[in-house]
Structure formats: C-alpha cells, structure tokens
C-alpha cells in the first residue's frame, strides 16, 4: 500500500494567519528542504533598471536574492551577503553601492516588503549621488529569479537538546538552511528554530542560546554554519558538561 503524504501551504509570519510554530513544544522535528530556482525573465543592466524591477518583483525573488546564495556553490568566505551587493560590485563596479547594500541586515526588518523598501532606498540614495549611474551599463546583467521551496519531514525527532550534539554534524546542509536560515522568515521574531525551541526549557540553555545567536549567518557557507552549531551544542549544552 502506498504511503500517503499530506501537504499544506504554510503561512508566513507576515501573513495575517495566526502563527503556528513549526516544531512541537516537546520534540524538535528535523526537517529538510529543496529549493528550486524559477526564471522571471526580468533583468537589469543599469542601476535604474534594477531599482525599477526590484520595486515590483515577486517577494520570493527578494528572498532568493538575499538568502539563496547560501545554497549556491561557494568557496571560503563570502565577500557580499546578497546578490544585489555582489552585482553592484561585479556587474556595476560601484564599490560604494556594494558596501551599502551588503550592510543591509534582513533581520532588522519585519518582513521582506520592508526589506525591499530599504534596498530601494539605498539605491535611490546612490542614484542621487552619482548621476552617471542612471545610464551606466553593467558589464553583466542582473537576472531576477524567484524560488519555490519544498519542505519535507525526515521523521527524526529530538526529545532533548543534548541529542542534537551528535545529530547536527550529520544533518544535510539544506536541513541547516531550513532550521537556521529559513526559520528567520517563518518565526515571528527573527530567530532560528534551535533557539526558538531551546526557550521552551526556560533558562537551562540560556548560555547555549547566547552562543547560537552569535553565529553570523551571512558570511559562512552552510557547511561552516553546521560546524559552528555543532561546536556550540557540544560546548554549551549543560547535559554535555562534565
């Protein structure tokens, strides 16, 4: 007999639907995801065009261009943490704009719509500063893409945080993406699933929570983030200490 699978479209934290935590309060559900890119057909070869498309592009495209690079092949340290900044540097060759766009922290904005407005603001400011950027052609176009994400349950359940010490090193990088990056979009406060779950234990894991919060999601690849998470759990999980 075939196993049945049910599907639901998850509400985002930004929707009006009531928030539903992705993990049970008494067990952490290990999930995984697969992201697929979809062409939008929109591309920009000037900053003005980038600004125009960004003002109307699907919100999922902004999600992909801000976070998607973490799921892309990369080497060592990422120079810029979103596609807009990378293009400003490599396509438009405007280091000033690249630096400003790179410093836009998605966690500071309530939702992707607010984040869009901030990127537009930075671009508008730069266009006012440098007249030539209205018409200067980039050496490579910015291709707007959007994404679809399929989340699936691995059926693994964690009852106690200490179990994550041995489990995290074996999680796929896409699972790390789901719990550590994608969670920031799902949860009402910009937080990852691990910290959200640990708060269920009151102050017991406060130190661990503090160290998890210190992991910078922007500049390291998912393999490095997985290692950092594993290290933090190993060092600061009270149950693991001698």
């Amino acid at each position: 007999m075939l196993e049945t699978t049910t599907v639901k479209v998850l509400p985002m934290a930004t929707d009006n639907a009531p928030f539903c935590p992705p993990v049970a309060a008494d067990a952490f559900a290990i999930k995984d995801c697969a992201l697929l890119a979809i062409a939008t057909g929109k591309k920009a070869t000037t900053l003005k065009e980038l600004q125009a498309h960004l003002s109307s592009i699907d919100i999922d495209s902004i999600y992909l261009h801000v976070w998607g690079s973490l799921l892309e092949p990369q080497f060592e340290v990422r120079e810029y943490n979103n596609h807009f900044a990378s293009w400003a540097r490599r396509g438009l060759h405007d280091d000033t704009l690249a630096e400003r766009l790179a410093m836009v922290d998605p966690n500071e904005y309530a939702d992707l719509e607010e984040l869009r407005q901030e990127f537009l603001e930075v671009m508008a400011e730069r266009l006012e500063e440098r007249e030539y950027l209205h018409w200067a052609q980039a050496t490579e176009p910015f291709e707007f893409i959007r994404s679809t994400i399929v989340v699936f349950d691995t059926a693994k359940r964690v009852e106690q945080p200490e179990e994550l010490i041995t489990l995290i090193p074996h999680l796929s990088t896409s699972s790390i993406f789901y719990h550590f990056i994608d969670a920031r979009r799902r949860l009402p406060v910009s937080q990852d699933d691990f910290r959200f779950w640990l708060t269920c234990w009151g102050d017991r894991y406060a130190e661990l929570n503090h160290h998890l919060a210190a992991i910078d999601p922007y500049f390291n690849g998912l393999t490095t983030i997985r290692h950092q998470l594993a290290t933090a759990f190993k060092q600061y999980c009270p149950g693991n200490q001698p």
Partner: protein
Amino acid sequence: MSILEQYAQIVGDDVIDQLQQLAKPLRGKSVVHVNSTKLGGGVAEILTKLVPLMQELELNTDWQVITGDEPFFQCTKGMHNALQGNQVSLPHGLLEHYEAINRENAERLRSHLVDADFVFIHDPQPAPQLSLCPDRQGHWIWRCHIDASHPYRPVWKFLRPFIEPYEASIFSLPAFAQALPHPEYIISPSIDPLSDKNIDLPPEEVREVLRQFQIDPDRPLVVQVSRYDRFKDPVGVIRAYKMATKFHPDLQLVLAGGSADDDPEGVLVLQEVKAEANHDPDIHILMLPPDANRTINALQRAADIVMQKSTREGFGLTVTEAMWKGKPVIGGDTGGIRLQVVNYHTGFLVNTPEGAALRIRYLLNQPDKITEFGHKAQEFVRENFLLTRHLREYMTLMVSLLHGGGDRLELT
C-alpha cells in the same frame, strides 16, 4: 549493489536519504521521458542513468524515443542550431515533414503518454507531442537543454506555439530562458560519475591511452576536449600553447574532438587548426569516434590542466567532467563555464589566448595550486553537478507541480 547504493558511496548517505524523502509523495506516479535518441548526446547520457534511478525510488518511470527519417533529423538539427542563434532557414516543406513525423509518433506513443502523471519532453524534436495528445491527464514539462537565449526568430516563432501550452519548462541557466507564459524552472545539467566518461580508471589504462597517441606521460599536458567548432576556439588554444611553451618548452597539447566529416564548417576549422599547429610533434590533434568515452576519460585524467577556451558555450559539461577528475580548468569567460570555473579556486576564466597562456604558466609554476584547485573542483562538482542533484531538482519540481506549483510547500 543497487544504483542508489553505488551513488551513496560517491555522494554520501544524506544525499540519498534526501532523494528518498522527496520520492515519497511521488511513489507509484507514472513518469515518461521522451527524447529523440537512446544513444549518443548529452540527453541520452543523462536519461540512461536517471530513468533507472527514478525506478529504484519507486517512481513508475518509462523512457520513450521518437523515431524519424533523415529529413526529420535534418530539420531538428537545423532547429537545434537555430535555437542557439544560427541563421538557419528551414523550408516550409521540411517543417511540414517535422509535424507529420511527430503525428506518426503521437499515434504510437499516445497510450504511454495520455495517462502519465508526468511527461518530460526533451528538446525541440518531440515538442509537438503535447498538442497531439489532447486527452492528456498529467503534468507536461518541456526540458530545453539548449542555450535558447538568442534564437533565430523565424524558427522560434514556429516552435513557440508548440511549447507555450506546457505547464512548465526547464532551462539550464536563467540566461538561456525565453519569455514563455508558464513557469520556467532553472535546473543545471549534470554528469554521471558512474558512466564510462567519468568513472575512475586504473592508471595502466590511462598510460595505455597515452602510449597509443604517443604522448609522453612524464611531461606536462594540457587537454581540450571539444568538437572542431570556431566557438570552441581551438586555434586560440594552440596560440596559448605556443606562448606558454616559451617558458615551458616541454609542454604538450591534446585537442580531442570528433570527426568533422559530416560538418562542412568543422572541416574548415580542422584545416585551420592543422595549419596553426604547423606539424608541431607535441600538438596532438585527435579525431575520436563518438563512443570513445573511456579514451576521453583517460586523456582528461592524464592532463595537468584542462582547457575549455570557448568564446560561446552552453553549459559546458566538458568542464564539469574535467573538474570531477580533479583538474583545474582554464575556460572562456562565457555561458555556463562562469558557473563552474571560479578564479583562484577551480581554475581561471580567460578572454584571450594571452590570458590562457598566462594561466597555464601560473599553474605549471605552482604544481601545488594544480592539486589544490583540482581538489576544490572535484568537491564543487560532487556537491553541485552530479546526477543526484539533477534528480533532486526534477523531483522537487514534480512535487511542486503535483500540489499546484506554489512558492512554498510543506510535506508532512
């Protein structure tokens, strides 16, 4: 050992676990791939392994091939070239013949396609099958393996009505896509690490191939594997080699391509290549048969550096193949090569023979960089360009379409 177990040894159990999770909602679904050949070419290579992998994951997967006569394939070859931007005029009669052959195939294939849950139509040859199957039940997807970014408009105008009604299409890069009234998914192609072209070879087999072509195994070797086509710039490769030999006189070069007998332009390019080589005994210009996969594999493994100095390129799977063998690649700054060759990590992107010569010298002077880049290149391919990633994305697409193609789905 099952195919999944063989792949697990290469990509790791977590990757296979992920495939099995994604396959759950697709178990028992019928999937049919349709293309125009069982043998030869990148599409057939991928399907040869993809179909049994999908079957092992309990998807009821079938592979059908359309048949045609010489004028039909003459027409579809013209379409292929036209989609890549060549100005190919296809006479009205030939286009009518293309439709007639597709109608004949539709009669034969209808029973396979009409009830299928998913139908993947590969490239333009069988594109009209959708419109010839009006009672279809499933999700139909057109998979374009070609760089269709700048098609010859009259040919695209002819093909477009056949492609528009599909539920989705798949392109290899965002830049290759055409504006269509349905979602256009971006899925990179892949290589099969277990195929003759990519499988590990015993060192004695590599040495035997070098002996066969009188290549000295103790001297540095640069290899480019490509058909004799101006866009692959074989003449530029020879120029780069000549500049580099001023500093590394013991350098050898292999240009390995197919026979150009059936390609008038290929014959001309080959003449130019031979003229540029000027009987240099260290330049080996090889014309290999289409099934010389293990020979190509051995040449890539014997190389110190692999070149793909194209001035225009689709995805560039020869780059992927070389990287999988742990070789740094010096590639033209174009198309899919840009996605794979990362300066100072997996190789170098170049724009001129001078640039290629400079990078050959850089790498030959620092053998440790050859090793370092090669190692990174292999890991890069392992994570991104193997068949398992390709299959994961196909199944992600299928799950997404099965549930309405939303931007976010959670399977519970």
